[in-house]
């Protein structure tokens, strides 16, 4: 058994896995790593299952004391991580020694880093997942939905065996202009022509009032003149447009049903990309076909196996 001791945290770092499924009809949200691609790669680097439980660290401010000699993997945002003062770049595995300190400072690119350990961090399965959802009191270290706290101990049972190296072309460049792919939905015809033009041609800014439930986009509002909607299930990445005309992209911790019209849903890859955008970052939306999005998704999942 090995462990990491939490010496410092801002209260945002949480244990996350692939999320909670098969319970959406009970009003239970999905949860899970916001950047599921970074989670998958962190686990792949150590030979774990792609959805094994890892630590999601938004924005930094976390210090961990290593209580064993082992290998860890870091992906996602570059939070200027240091191991005993030596820089640890993301998108690779690295060895740590008992007594060393791993410190996450502040973002240099991206927003959320993912730290994986051999075999995944141990946490109780609550409704089939360890995903932390504070609002619902589910998941996390003791199962009650708490984010990480100081003096928490992250335990993992796996052994550091042979590790892998990221294929370079797979490492995302967060500095590039962001074009998010949207699969148009059934209500798209209910938006006025001018609004549809704006939706796909204006630059949207990430509103700071964004969280694990939804990421808000700021720009010139869109107008919907279609039929009002009766509340219905909401898929991951749904781009809903409330009466103020400003879209909200619904993320992992979204409510399970809702009644605002939707432009459609982002592809899962674009959902992952969006979660690495900081407040005030600029993005554009582009329409994409379902078939292409499915093929790309399957190609990535197959690669991990």
């Amino acid at each position, binding site marked *: 058994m090995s462990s990491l001791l939490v010496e410092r945290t801002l209260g945002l770092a949480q244990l996350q896995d692939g999320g909670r499924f098969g319970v959406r*009809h009970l009003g*239970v949200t999905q949860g899970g790593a916001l950047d599921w691609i970074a989670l998958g790669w962190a686990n792949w680097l150590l030979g774990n299952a792609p959805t094994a439980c890892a630590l999601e660290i938004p924005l930094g401010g976390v210090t961990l004391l290593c209580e064993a000699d082992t290998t860890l993997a870091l992906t996602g945002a570059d939070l200027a991580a240091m191991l005993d003062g030596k820089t640890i770049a993301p998108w690779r595995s690295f060895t740590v020694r008992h007594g060393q300190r791993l410190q996450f400072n502040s973002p240099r690119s991206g927003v959320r880093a993912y730290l994986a350990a051999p075999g995944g961090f141990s946490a109780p399965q609550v409704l089939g997942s360890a995903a932390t959802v504070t609002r619902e009191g589910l998941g996390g270290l003791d199962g009650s939905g708490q984010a990480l706290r100081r003096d928490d101990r992250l335990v993992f049972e796996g052994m550091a065996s042979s590790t892998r190296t990221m294929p370079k072309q797979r490492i995302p460049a967060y500095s590039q202009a962001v074009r998010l792919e949207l699969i148009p939905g059934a209500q798209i015809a209910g938006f006025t022509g001018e609004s549809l033009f704006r939706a796909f041609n204006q630059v949207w800014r990430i509103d700071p009032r964004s969280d694990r439930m939804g990421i808000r986009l700021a720009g010139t509002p869109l107008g919907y003149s279609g039929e009002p909607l009766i509340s*219905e*299930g909401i898929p991951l990445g749904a781009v809903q447009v409330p009466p103020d005309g400003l879209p909200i992209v619904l993320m992992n911790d979204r409510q399970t049903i809702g009644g605002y019209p939707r432009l459609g*849903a982002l592809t899962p890859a674009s959902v992952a990309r969006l979660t690495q955008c900081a407040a005030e970052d600029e993005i554009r939306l582009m329409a994409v076909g379902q078939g292409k999005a*499915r093929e790309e*998704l399957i190609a990535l999942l197959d690669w991990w196996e």
Partner: protein
Amino acid sequence: MKLQIERAAVDTLMIRLFDRIEEGNMPWLLAAAQQLRRQFGDQLIDLVPSYTTLMLHYDLRQLDEHTAREHIFTALAGLQPLPPEHAGRKHEIAVWYDPSVGPDLQRLSGLTGLEVSQVIALHSDHEYQVFALGFAPGFAYMGLLDERLAAPRLATPRKRVPAGSVAIAERQTAAYPLASPGGWNLVGRTPAPLFDRDRDGYSLLQPGDRVQFVPVEHAEFVRLGGDDTPVSGDT
């Protein structure tokens, strides 16, 4: 009933069966859910019933969208509504109706022109359908409430609604399984544990269940394990 299938996401289809919210929709939606679960088996990831729809999230590695649509047509061909005795379970849910735990009783009385006792009588005099679960784990949207009781949500939601609070908004009623923010009108509190991660099925109320609220006195409420801490005024 109609059958309209819409793409909701790369791996999710929206099955639209009705255009309006009606209690009579539920036996059809439940029957459809049963057939879809059977048809899809382990290719189904989540199936979310709501008032007029079922959202179906399938495993895109096992099947493409075209096949998923075919599965849906196969599953729903010749669909018959579930007979009432199979359409969910019936629950009697004890409620202590009192201004201390139902601070909006007076507001409802004012809005509707009914006495508080009439508000309580009307609320507890109907067997409600559970239309959908959402908002929070185990939070059941039930209806339809007597038109005379329909009242808008609070202009400013409370920051904290205590667990067990029984509430009204428009023509729906619900009970809060966990303490959470909320903008519905609070009329009372139930001691019933609505969401329990150790219970089989987790949620006391499931889509399609029928619910009758039963008024109880304070002593009975406490005996049943209810927490009678008043809703604090500043929340």
